[in-house]
């Protein structure tokens, strides 16, 4: 096995591994938590300051784009791609909590995004007066509600379904997304398939400074996304480095053992669902106010699959992975399309054809690098080495010797909590 692809991943591993190599084994000189931390030492030493640095670097992108530093993505077009990548990072971070940290397969994640968007549309003076909304609040006022509705939906769908085992969860979430689409398609207040137009954009006035976010793709949209992304990153990292994150890891690695150690399994899973839904709801608000027109076709099932793609290709359980995934799914296809000058590429339109390409990329990544390109170290170890639970039988070494159907605590445990 030393194909070029394999060697490339080896090379990538060599880049990513140095911290682990240096990690001292015995005794414990530094808190052991740091074993799994991401990013270089220098970056870590910055402490909370690194979020400011990251925000600063992100803020530099639009001006650099204007100067033509990014060869293909420039001008208005570049800003649009930047925006798309930005809200996509939010979605990937959120689904990353569900899939990457809690280890749950959610195939209908975009349903929460849809709910965030529709909540925004229905609570602001969108459409014609007296149409398509419950109340006519300012755009900003709808933001907390987009968040809350998505989170409540997370609880509502999570509580009954998270008692189910993996495969069922995937199906139920897929169904939930489809149901949401049907509801939006058939309700009067959402204007059915015709969608809701004229969703007002937010505006900011601080003292003499006034800015009205318009369809105008000025970099301000990006400046709106920066704090949202940074906050989401802080949220994910802090949860991951706490009791909550430890519990998620424990559930992922051995659910039966986790529950025997006092981990409230269903509660922790619902929590992951709700946390994931929260960034999705915020992303929905930003998206709806940016595009100003939403209809059910803005949220196809395929979108859920694409977010999952960007989580899985980018890498499970890591911030860098989420960003990389979003860039690969949103920015790269756009860049390729721009590069091809609108022509088809090997008979594909690069943007719609990306699905086929992702399929191929996904397979290659899964073969050579299960867990994704920049997966968190622990996730990569988990993926490569089979855990003990792969043997299914829980605690009955004797069961097979007793000529009785093999005892299966795992299923009993699952059935029990139902």
């Amino acid at each position, binding site marked *: 096995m030393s194909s070029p692809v394999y060697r490339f991943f080896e090379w990538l591993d060599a880049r990513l591994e140095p911290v682990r190599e240096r*990690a*001292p*084994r*015995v*005794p*414990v000189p530094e*808190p*052991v*938590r740091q*074993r799994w931390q991401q990013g270089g030492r220098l970056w870590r030493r910055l402490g909370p300051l690194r979020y400011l640095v990251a925000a600063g670097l992100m803020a530099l992108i639009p001006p650099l784009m204007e100067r033509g530093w990014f060869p293909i993505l420039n001008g208005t077009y570049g800003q649009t791609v930047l925006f798309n990548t930005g809200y996509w990072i939010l979605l990937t971070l959120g689904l990353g909590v569900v899939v990457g940290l809690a280890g749950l397969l959610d195939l209908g994640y975009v349903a929460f995004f849809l709910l965030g968007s529709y909540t925004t549309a229905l609570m602001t003076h969108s459409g014609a007066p007296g149409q398509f909304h419950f109340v006519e609040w300012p755009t900003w006022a709808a933001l907390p509600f987009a968040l809350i509705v998505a989170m409540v939906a997370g609880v509502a769908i999570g509580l009954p379904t998270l008692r189910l085992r993996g495969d069922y969860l995937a199906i139920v979430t897929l169904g939930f997304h489809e149901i949401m689409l049907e509801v939006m398609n058939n309700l009067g207040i959402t204007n059915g398939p015709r969608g809701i137009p004229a969703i007002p954009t937010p505006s900011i006035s601080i003292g003499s400074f006034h800015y009205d976010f318009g369809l105008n793709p000025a970099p301000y949209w990006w400046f709106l996304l920066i704090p949202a992304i940074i906050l989401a990153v802080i*949220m994910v990292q*802090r*949860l991951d*480095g*706490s*009791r*909550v*994150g*430890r*519990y998620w*890891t*424990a559930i992922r*690695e*051995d659910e*039966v*053992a*986790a*529950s*025997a*150690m*006092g*981990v*409230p*399994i269903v509660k922790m899973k619902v*929590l992951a669902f709700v*946390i994931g839904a929260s960034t999705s709801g915020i992303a929905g608000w930003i998206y709806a106010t940016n595009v100003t027109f939403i209809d059910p076709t803005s949220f196809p099932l395929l979108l859920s699959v694409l977010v999952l793609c960007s989580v899985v290709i980018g890498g499970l359980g890591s911030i860098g992975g989420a960003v990389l995934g979003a860039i690969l799914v949103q920015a790269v296809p756009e860049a390729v399309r721009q590069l091809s000058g609108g022509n088809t590429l090997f008979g594909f339109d690069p943007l719609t054809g990306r699905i086929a390409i992702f399929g191929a990329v996904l397979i290659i990544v899964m073969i050579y690098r299960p867990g994704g390109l920049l997966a968190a170290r*622990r996730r990569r*170890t*988990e993926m490569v*080495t089979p*855990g*003990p*639970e792969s043997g299914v*039988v*829980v*605690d*009955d*070494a*004797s*069961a097979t*010797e*007793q000529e*009785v*159907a093999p*005892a299966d*605590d795992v299923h*009993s*445990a699952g059935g*029990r*909590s139902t």
Partner: protein
Amino acid sequence: MTALLEVEDVTMEFGGLRALSEVTFAIDKGEIFGLIGPNGAGKTTLFNSITGVYPPTRGRIVFAGRPITGLRPDRIVQLGICRTFQQIRLFPFMTALENVMVGVDARHRTSVPGALLHLPRFKREEAEGEARALELLHYVGIGRFANELAANLSYGDQRRLEIARALGTGPSLLLLDEPAAGMNPAEKNALRDLIRKIRDSGITVLLIEHDMRVVMGLSDRVAVLDHGVLIAEGRPESVQRDPKVIQAYLGTGAAGDGEAATGEAG
């Protein structure tokens, strides 16, 4: 002496199979209670019923005066019962220290707000949890492997880690499911000392063990299960001489301690 755990008429059926039938016994506070029986006798099943993995088909389990039948496993841990597994079930890709921290976390209350805002309680609990976990690793004798992945530890050390993790939850009743299985004689001796030390620290121990030397040497009282039926209970010396017990062991052909102990490893 007051009974810490009372098992009353517990019956467990899996389809047509009766794994436990009307098992009744009580464990006193501060004792080491041995549970023995041939392979497939229902010992692990009893652990699973006590810890809430599955509620018994019939019967009642009372812990410290409180019925716990049918409670969720995590609730039972909160009340002060924790267990180890016969087939080791650690979190393989967490370090030894992290494994124990998961156990210690059962005593903590930090949730999302505390973690997000790094509230004082979060910081205190993280620091305390880490210190307590490290202390427990030293307590069971594997402190030097704190930073090692659980999957990389030797078999005997993994068993110790399971005990440390369970102790982390701060139990008043510790259930050990064949802790000596797969250990060499030196490790078994150390384990015996450890179990005594745990009992002396005030924790009641319910011990399943095939190695007769270990279980008879340690236990204050012993109960014998055979085909789901409790056939004997009492002081180790009298149980050993009980004809029904001898019959049960000889009858299944799994008599010798050596045989039973090695038969487990796989």
